[in-house]
C-alpha cells in the first residue's frame, strides 16, 4: 500500500514545484532580489575600495576578498585551491554532523516523552527550565574542564544548543496534535504504545522538523563561538586566527563560507522534512484552492 501511495505523491509535488518556480520567475521578485544583492555588493565595493570612507578603510574590500578566494596562490594562505581551507570546512561539518545527529537522536525521544507523559514532564521539565536560561556559551570553560581533549568540548557545546531546540519543539509538536486524533486512536482500540507510534510521532513531525531547522541554526551559532574560543581547525577558529594574525580578507572568506555551508545544511533538513511528510503536500494544494 505504501508503495502505491508513494508513487502517487511525487506527481503533484513536481507539478507544484514547477508551478511555484514559474510563478516566482513571472513576478518582479527575481529582479528585486538581484537589485538587493547589487546594492549590498555595490555598497561594500564603493565604501571600502572606491571612496575609502573613514571607518571602512581598514576593512577587506570586495575585490581583494574575491581575488584572494579564487587565487591559486593566495597572499594569506586560504583560498578555494588550498587544501587547508577544505579541511577547516570538513572539520566544522564533522562537528556539526556528530552534534546534530546526537541531539536529534536524544532530543526527539526526550521531546516526545515530555509531550506524551505527564509524569515524565513533571519530573524532567523543571531541570530543562533551570538549564535553559544559561547561555550555551557560558558552558565553554566548564565543558573544557569536564571533557577530555579539545574535540569533545566543542561537540558537547554544539550538541547542547541543538538538543534544547529539538526537544522543546518536539514537545510543542506533541502538544499541538489535535486531541481528537488521540481519542480516535483510543476508540479504535490502539494501546498507548500504538497511539504513540501511529499518532504522536507522525502528528508531531511538522514541529519536529521546525525544531530541527532551528537546531541546525543554533548548532552553527554555538560551533563558531566554541571554535573561536577553543579548538584547532574549523571555520570559527579560522576567523579568530585570521584576526589575530592580521589576515583580514580570510576573515571575510570564512564568514561567507559559513553563510553558504549554514544555508545548505538547513536546506538539507528542510528537504528531508518535505520528503518525510508527503501527506502534507497534497493537503496544502487543496487548502490553497479553497
Amino acid at each position, binding site marked *: 500500500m505504501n508503495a502505491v501511495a508513494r508513487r502517487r505523491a511525487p506527481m503533484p509535488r513536481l507539478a507544484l514545484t514547477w508551478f511555484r518556480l514559474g510563478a516566482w520567475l513571472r513576478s518582479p521578485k527575481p529582479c528585486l532580489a538581484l537589485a*538587493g544583492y547589487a546594492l549590498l555588493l555595490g555598497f561594500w565595493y564603493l565604501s571600502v575600495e572606491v571612496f575609502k570612507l573613514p*571607518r571602512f578603510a*581598514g576593512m577587506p574590500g570586495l575585490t581583494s576578498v574575491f581575488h584572494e578566494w579564487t587565487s591559486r596562490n593566495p597572499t594569506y594562505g586560504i583560498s578555494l585551491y588550498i587544501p587547508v581551507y577544505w579541511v577547516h570546512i570538513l572539520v566544522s561539518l564533522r562537528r556539526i554532523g556528530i552534534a546534530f545527529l546526537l541531539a536529534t537522536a536524544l532530543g526527539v525521544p526526550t521531546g516526545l516523552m515530555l509531550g506524551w507523559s505527564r509524569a515524565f514532564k*513533571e519530573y524532567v521539565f523543571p531541570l530543562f527550565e533551570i538549564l535553559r536560561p544559561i547561555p550555551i556559551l557560558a558552558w565553554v570553560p*566548564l565543558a573544557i574542564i569536564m571533557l577530555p581533549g579539545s574535540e569533545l568540548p566543542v561537540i558537547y557545546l554544539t550538541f547542547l544548543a541543538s538538543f534544547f531546540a529539538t526537544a522543546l519543539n518536539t514537545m510543542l509538536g506533541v502538544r499541538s496534535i489535535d486531541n481528537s486524533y488521540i481519542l480516535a486512536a483510543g476508540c479504535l482500540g490502539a494501546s498507548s504504545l500504538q497511539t504513540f507510534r501511529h499518532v504522536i510521532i507522525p502528528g508531531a513531525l511538522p514541529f519536529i522538523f521546525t525544531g530541527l531547522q532551528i537546531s541546525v541554526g543554533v548548532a552553527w551559532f554555538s560551533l563558531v563561538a566554541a571554535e573561536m574560543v577553543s579548538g584547532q581547525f574549523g571555520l570559527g577558529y579560522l576567523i579568530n586566527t585570521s584576526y589575530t594574525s592580521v589576515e583580514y580578507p580570510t576573515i571575510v572568506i570564512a564568514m561567507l563560507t559559513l553563510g553558504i555551508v549554514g544555508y545548505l545544511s538547513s536546506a538539507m533538513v528542510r528537504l528531508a522534512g518535505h520528503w518525510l511528510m508527503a501527506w502534507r503536500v497534497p493537503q496544502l494544494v487543496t487548502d490553497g484552492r479553497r
Partner: protein
Amino acid sequence: MTQQAAIITPDSGRLLRFRTAALPRLLFNRSSRRAIVSILAAIALWQLGATSREWLGWPVPVLGHVPAPDAVLVAWYHVLGDAGYWQSWYQSFLRVAMGFAAATAIGVPFGLTLAMSPTCRGIVLPVFELLRPIPPLAWVPASILFWPTQELSIDFVIFLGAFYTIVLNVLGGAETIDIRLVQAARSMGASRINIFRRIILPGVLPSIGAGMEVAIGITWEVVVAAEMISGGGSGGASGAGGGLGFFIWNSYVGGSYPDIVVGMISIGIAGYGSSALVRLLQTRLTPWLEAR
C-alpha cells in the same frame, strides 16, 4: 475541555456537594512536588559525582571534574561581597540593554517598512537570507575592525543577533494580519495613518513581543560569547567589570573553577529575569490575547 463556559448557572450552588477536592490545587501540588524531587535528585547526583574523587578514589567521567555544589555555594558567598562581581552584572546588563534596545528601536520600524512595501521587501529579504546564516559571532573580528572602540563592537554584535529575529518576527506578524481587517477599515473611511496606528500596529504587536522574547535570549548568548572572545571589552584589562561572560572566562583562566559555575548560574538568573521582564511587557501590551 470541549466546553468553554464562563457563566455560572443559577443553580450551581447545589454543586458544591459533588466537589470532593480542589482539583487544580491538588495538581499544582503534585507537579511542584515532583519538580522539587527531581531538582534535589539532580543536585545530589551532582554532589556525589563531583566529590567522587574523595569517596571513590577516582573521579567519574564528566561529573568528576565539575566543582561540587557546596564548593559553588561557598564561592558564591565569597563573591557576593566583591564589587567586581556586581560590576560584571552591571556591565553585561548594560550591554544587553544597549544591544537589545538598538535592535528593537531599529528592527521594529525596519520590519514594518518591509511589511508595508513589497518593493523594499523584495530587495532586502534576499540579502537578509544571504547574511542570516552567518552566525553573529563570526562578525566579532570584522566588528572590532570597524568600530572605533571595543565596547561599540561588542554592542554591534549583540545588536546583530537580536536584529534578525526581531525584523523577521515583525515581518511574519504583518503577514498574518487578516487583509480583511484592513479592507474593513478602509471601507469605513479610515485614513492610512489611522489604519497603520489602529490596525497594523496592534496586529503586529503579538509577534513583536514574541520576537523580543526570543531576541533577549539570543542577546545573552551573544553577550557571553563576545565577552569571552574579546577578553572583556574595555574594562577587561583590570580583570573585573568585564561582564559576566568575562567573569566566567577569567575564573577559568585563573583556575578558580567554582566561580565558573557561579558565573553560569548568575547569567542564568540574569537571562531568566530579563525574559520575564519582556514577557511581562508583552502581556501588558496585548491584553486581548489573555481574554479568551
